[in-house]
């Protein structure tokens, strides 16, 4: 039952990201995405290869149904899935890995979760903005866009994390 709730909510959040991309463009300087937290919150027993394939599929779906460029979200999301296995023990400690516990704000506290999400968002937006700029945007403009996107998306991702695993 718990798993079904997670899966349905997961799919709804992916659909929500598609809607956000299509209808709620805030500014050219701010990108909002909760996809990094969706990858971070994948079940812990899921290996790196499977989580990378899930990340690729999520990115593909979002790009396919939104007006974005096909492949750009997958390009940015796969490194988030790759870094997940290293990031979790680094932020939450090795115990979490040995006990095989799922990530949640209630279990690990808001600070550790915020830190993990910040790093994931940082990786995601770094690749996304770098590929989106394609060498045509000057450094400071791209850096401003990157910083604003990470700062705005991190609290939203925290809320999404609480929504996915409230216990």
């Amino acid at each position, binding site marked *: 039952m718990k798993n079904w709730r997670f899966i349905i909510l997961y799919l709804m959040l992916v659909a929500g990201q598609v809607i956000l991309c299509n209808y709620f463009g805030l500014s050219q300087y701010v990108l909002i995405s909760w996809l990094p937290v969706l990858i971070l919150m994948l079940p812990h027993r899921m290996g790196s290869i499977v989580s990378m394939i899930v*990340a690729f599929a999520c990115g593909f779906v979002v790009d396919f149904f939104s007006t974005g460029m096909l492949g750009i979200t*997958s390009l940015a999301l796969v490194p988030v899935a790759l870094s997940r296995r290293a990031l979790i023990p680094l932020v939450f400690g090795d115990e979490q890995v040995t006990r095989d516990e799922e990530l949640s704000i209630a279990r690990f506290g808001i600070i550790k979760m915020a830190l993990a999400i910040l790093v994931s968002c940082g990786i995601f937006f770094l690749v996304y903005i770098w590929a989106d700029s*394609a060498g045509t945007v000057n450094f400071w403009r791209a850096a401003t866009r990157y910083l604003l996107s990470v700062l705005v998306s991190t609290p939203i991702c925290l809320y999404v994390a609480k929504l996915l695993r409230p216990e």
Partner: protein
Amino acid sequence: MARNGKFYSGLAVAAVFILLEIAAMSMLKSSSALQDIWINRASHNAMAWSWGKISKLQNYLSLQKENELLAGRNYELFKELQHYREMEREMQTMAKLDSIGFRSMFNYIPAEITAMGTNSRHNYIILDKGAEDGVRPNSAIITPNGVVGMIYSVDRHYSYGISLLNDRLSVSARIGKEGLVAPMSWDGHGTDHAILKDIPLHLTVAEGDTVRTSGLSTVYPADIPLGVTMGSRLVDGAVNVVDVKLFIDFASLRYVIIAENPDRETIEKMER
């Protein structure tokens, strides 16, 4: 075993990551013209960089071959130069020389140094050419930059020589083209200095003059540059000694030329 498993799983993760990123990039490339140009440019840069590195590596690996080729070329040019020097000298002494009938006085054999000592007062040198290659004792070991030593004994495939950095070896040298002739030997200090001995007191030697082999010995070909004079000093109140800075760098020496005078024995018999 567990270590191997971890390694292979890491390899599989890396392979899947690269595959997925390539797939995402090719989708991005085909869906946007701007990104297409950007990816193409990046891939061209990466290719140019890797080609550059590979070609640098290839160049580095082929250095040995290149060195051997250059040593061979150096040897050929040296042989030619010596031939012209000898011809010039003969023409100066015999005005009616028929150059068609001219033959070189020395036979030259290129060789590579197998071992060489530079740390004692009696340094030696071993070359990779021996009796089967035509090397005979008392042949000169030279380079275009100076005298290296003299062959002392010969094996079938190797030859043993006395280095110039050996106080037993003395080379007949001339200061300038037609100047004073004096024996030159190692001063025993450092690998780039030698001394010209037995210079009479009434003769003055200018600094910076080129010292060459005199050609008066049957061992060394004439006019091989040896070094430059650096000043003279009085020894035992009887004779002057001139310091010579050698052209040859013994530290980086690898290829040499063995010069053998086929008429040496005949000339030495006549001297007796």
